[in-house]
């Protein structure tokens, strides 16, 4: 496996020639994608383009038929399970907000905190001062300080999305995969979420899938357009928006 130019920094995520088929249907078709360390990338594309499937492959939920998926240059993700990949430092936000509804906001964050994962150590774990402090920071960042004792199931849709992002951050991942974070959000919430992601991107690499063009514009990063399981175009948003094929299959619908 040869990964680009040896003098360049190792890509945090390297996807090459990945194909995934479901009963003969190619959800991903020879997909290739390279994310540099510290980069934020927006992924757009019509429904069924394979965006979520791509995240499934990176996080170990779906095994590719063929292709390479490497993290930090040399860790082969296709051999690892979800838990191992998460522990390596890849966090994932689902398309549908998924939090632990019958836990409090605080407990949701506590469970997400990086560190203890083995059943026996978890059984005897006590919240440390450091953990408490980190939880407080995350509550502050996601504007949930007031709601820290509420059950996550009682939060509004937007708050759940934010809590889930907070939980992702608690995992201290090097790479965040964020699937449609602003679906169902108000305009104000959408703008705030863009700001939050930009803030997060100061310390971590981010891959964000989104349909909302205002949001993608607000991120101001390189865009990859997926179509029928492979990359249709890649580049700055205005350049991609001017691309005829992109207009045809996606933007001009």
């Amino acid at each position, binding site marked *: 496996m040869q990964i680009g130019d040896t003098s360049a920094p190792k890509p945090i995520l390297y996807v090459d020639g990945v194909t995934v088929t479901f009963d003969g249907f190619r959800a991903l078709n020879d997909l290739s994608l390279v994310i540099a360390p510290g980069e934020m990338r927006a992924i757009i594309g019509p429904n069924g383009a394979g965006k979520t499937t791509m995240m499934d492959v990176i*996080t170990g*939920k779906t095994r590719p038929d063929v292709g390479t998926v490497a993290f930090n240059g040399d860790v082969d993700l296709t051999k690892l*399970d*979800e*838990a*191992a990949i*998460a*522990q390596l430092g890849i*966090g*994932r936000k*689902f398309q549908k907000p*998924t*939090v*632990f*509804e*019958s*836990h409090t906001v605080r*407990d949701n964050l*506590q*469970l*997400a905190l990086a560190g*203890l*994962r*083995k*059943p026996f150590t*978890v*059984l*005897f*774990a006590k919240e440390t001062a450091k953990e408490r402090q980190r939880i407080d920071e995350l509550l502050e960042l996601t504007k949930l300080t007031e709601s820290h004792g509420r059950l996550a199931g009682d939060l509004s849709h937007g708050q759940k999305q934010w809590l889930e992002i907070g*939980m992702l951050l608690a*995992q201290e991942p090097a790479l965040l995969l964020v699937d449609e974070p602003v679906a169902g959000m108000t305009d104000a919430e959408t703008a705030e979420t863009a700001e939050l992601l930009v803030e997060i991107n100061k310390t971590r690499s981010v891959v964000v899938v989104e349909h909302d063009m205002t949001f993608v514009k607000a991120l101001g990063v390189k865009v990859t357009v997926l179509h029928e399981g492979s990359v249709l175009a890649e580049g700055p948003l205005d350049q991609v928006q001017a691309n005829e094929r992109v207009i045809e299959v996606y933007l001009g619908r």
Partner: protein
Amino acid sequence: MIMKRLFGSDAMALWFLACLLVVTVLVGVLNLATPADSALHVPTYLVALLGKYLCYAILALSIDLVWGYVGILSLGHGAFFALGGYAMGMYLMRQIGPRGVYGDPVLPDFMVFLNWKELPWYWLGFDNFLFAMVMVALVPGILAFVFGYLAFRSRVTGVYLSIITQAMTYALLLAFFRNDMGFGGNNGLTDFKDLLGFNLQTDGMRVALFAASALALALCYLLCLWITRSRFGKVLIAVRDAESRTRFMGYRVEGYKLAAFTLSAVMAGVAGALYVPQVGIINPGEFAPQNSIEAVVWVAVGGRGTLVGAAVGAIVVNFGKTVFTGVLPELWLFALGGLFVFVTLLMPKGIVGTVPQLLDMMRSRKAQNAGETAKPEAPRPAAE
């Protein structure tokens, strides 16, 4: 201090343990220390009946741990209960010694009847009480571990998992029916004489077994309470609420499920072991799929995911069953089915979740009727 940490603000736990203690002491004293013709006397048959209910309560608790907290709906916990019961039964059989009908010093009657010449290897050691007690925990534990390992690793969940747990208990039912398995076939194990050298038929022993069941229930309850309130317990609830979220957070969900499932099976085995000397028999009927389903209904009726509810549900439903089968035995299954539908539709939180709500409603209505201004609602123990 320790008490405070265990219970937190939960008054329900204290109430439950206090009630259990009071009932146990009262029943014991009123059976042993009052004359049989006294109005206060608790007859021995009642002691045994209550002891049986307590064993069912432990079984219900074990089901609640996996169903209520991890979302694993096991319809095969009766198998673990029965295996624990058989392990105890084997010890009790060996305690009979030469007092069997055929007078063989070692072989139980059914083996003599089958013309067996020596004890099968898996009966060895069961004359030792400690060994037998280890087996009470180990046999259901190992079965659950192996079963759970295979099922959870293959990510079998939901209805499919429930179905294979039913298949497991049904397969054991068929196996234990066979005479050549060496567990007494159809008739099972019975005609027990003593336990640890004490005659099982005495009032003192009956009360002792009843008290042991109460103690086991209390200990299992405290263990479950501690586990479900630890961070481990929070992970279990997380698995129940959003399994894949938990996985993508880096928790290896299979391990958590397996630990809970195995522990739960051991608890069910202990319940079965306490049950057998009190009812005086263990036979393959205990593996019947229907038994496991009934036990799940107890938990639903009492309140899933509340621990106390499981125990309360087991006791209430079985009390109902005792009364009902005395009057209309053919209709019991319909009554049970009806109860399950009623609870699922109208009281999804079960008795323990619904009764405090009703009390609150009645109280506030009373307050309104009395013309008082609305008071802030009194804090009420959360039915987790």
